[in-house]
């Protein structure tokens, strides 16, 4: 059986759900970051799939370009977020998100 557009979209949705669950459930800040990456990549898969299988016979390139952008943005996010994470660890000596509630009203 060939993999069609539906398969990719469902894969993307599942990955997104996994990422969202991880984001909410993980206590470790590093885990939260990884979950965010999973969500990003899920959306990239959906974009690339739409670009590959096309819409009503057309194959717009913008989907692929967007997917590339998402990957690059994700990479940038990882760099910034890990440095923030390092700083948090250095100052607080913890990466538990439950301990980081400075924005509490």
């Amino acid at each position, binding site marked *: 059986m060939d993999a069609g557009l539906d398969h990719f979209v469902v894969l993307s949705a599942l990955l997104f759900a996994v990422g*969202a669950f991880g*984001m*909410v*459930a993980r206590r470790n800040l590093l885990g*939260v970051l990884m979950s965010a990456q999973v969500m990003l990549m899920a959306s990239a898969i959906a974009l690339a799939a739409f670009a590959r299988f096309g819409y009503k016979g057309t194959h717009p390139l913008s989907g692929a370009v967007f997917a590339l952008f998402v990957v690059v943005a994700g990479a940038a996010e990882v760099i910034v977020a890990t440095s923030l994470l390092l700083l948090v660890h250095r100052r607080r000596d913890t990466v538990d*998100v*439950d301990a*980081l*509630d*400075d*924005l*509490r*009203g």
Partner: protein
Amino acid sequence: MYNLAWAVVLLPLGGFLFAFLPESPRRAAQVCVTFTAAAFVMAMVVLLYRVAHVRDNPYQSMVTFWTFDPGTKMIGGFISDFHMQVGVVVDGLSAVMMAVVSFVSLLVQVYATGFMRRDDGYTRHFTTLLLATFAMLALVASPNLFQLWLFWEALGGCFFLLVGHWWQRDEAASAARRMFLVTGIGDLALLLAIVFLYTKLAASIALQPAPPGQSVNDPLNFFSLQKEWTAVMSGHVQGSGPRTLIILSLLLLLAAMAKSALVPLHGWLRGVFEEAPAPVIALISSVTVGAAGVFLIARMDPLFLAAPHVLSVVGLFGALSAVAGAVFALAQSDIRGLLAWLTVSQFGLMFVALGVGADGAAIFQLVAHAWFGCVLVFAAGSLVTAYRTTDIREMGGAWNAMRTSSRALLVAAASSAGAVLLAGFWSLSAITAGVLRNQFPNLGHVSGGVKGVLIVCVAAAVLLGAMSPLRMFFTVALGELPRRRGFQPQRVRELGGRVTAATTALAVLAAIGGFAGIPGVRASFSNFVYTLRPPGTGSAVLGLVITAVLGLAGASLAWALHRGALRLPAARATALLAEGLRVDAAYEWVVQHVVVRPAPLVETVDQAVGGNLDELGTGVDLGAETGRRWQLGRIDAVTVSALAGGALVAGLIVLGATGHLPHVGATR
């Protein structure tokens, strides 16, 4: 070329905004001075172009912000045909005023860079000076009463800030308040006049053809109004007649008197002279607040010419102030009080000139007084700082200790006294000639009795007004060096180069600036300011002779007073005069009994209203406290809410795109 007038008006506003960019106060002041200098250059270009094209019609350029069509429904009734316009107008009057205002403001700022050095509010002082300059320039360039009123109020606000510059002192804050409130009487009168004029005449003016180059006919435009007055006077306008004109012009007169500090609304000026910084005093007493009143009547003078009885009232009030100011100035030994009363006297003389229809002479006196009045205040500011006292009897020997300031003071005092060939001589003799001629441009005149009173009052004002500034100069410059405990005469010196430079520049003008307006000559100042009028040339020589004689007599009397050959009347009378005949005390009493006593009643009302307001505040507080708890500051909560929100939006988009939402269709 005339379009440059926009630049003249807007450059100070731009400078005001720019001056907040630099961090250093010195740089901010430089920005202010630069922008004012640019405005002055533009104003000179406009003025010279106007001189070259003196026969042009007045140039108007307007921006209409909003137009109320006839019959627009407003709360409480209909509004007919009102165009909210601002713009610039260039005719002889505004061209001259713009040049003078920007020039004096420039020199005041240069003076202030030296005088206000080491002051905490340096940037605040300069930016507010610039804002006040903008307000005055926009006021003199107004094409209609609406804009004039707008900037009339703005001017009051700016000077409230400027006079209260040292607000930490209670006296300064109180002087600023007093000025704001007393001139506020005038503001109210002007607003009433505008509303009254609008309700009476708007419908009639809207029927007139629009002026050339204009798409609409603004009922408050000066040139539309100008044509209206004669129609009203001859009864062609339904619902208004001569009485309308009298009420209008009396209201405008009240407005002008409050701004120009005429007796009996002069009380605020003394406080300003005592508490404001010297640059602010110079600006207030020369080309801004005081001048605004004179300008208002000069601008609206077609109305006053149509109501000649009110012109007599203008002249008589002016004469009262001219004489009272000159007499009271003579009794002052406080330099600030002396100059304050002298200013009242000068503005009184301008109103006398307005009252006999010699508007050109009034504006010329305004310009000349801007020069010598500013020098007097500049020199006084330097003297007070150097001698650390405001009593002229404790100053002396300035001729050698402060060479530039004392020489400038001599020029200004002599000019103010009408010494032959100096600026004040020409302007004072123009006023004298105008009173003697007694002929309006429309060939009317004030009655013989009024003319007699005016002649006597002007003569007295010129004679007595010559004495006090010269006597002050003799005492300060040629008198004995003061001997006071803890005072070191060798430390008396000038305040620095920029202060003396500004003083000198204006002193030169106070000396030679008068040749622009030799009375009786056709190509002279007054004929330029009111270009389209037949120039009145009669009585010019007689006016010159009388002024010269009176000025000389005043100077010799001042010298006699200084040498002790002549004494002022008994000490008690002098003391009474020095207090300004207790007019201020009477005002205090009225305020005490009419305002202060019923005030607790207001407080009771306030408490009742305030209680309810407090409850409202508590409600808001409670709501905020409840809402605050929803902010958990946890990543998981944030994520869940973001996902939920995203799902909601996505769901709505899908529903909308598939046509399941009412009123939203699929775009493809």
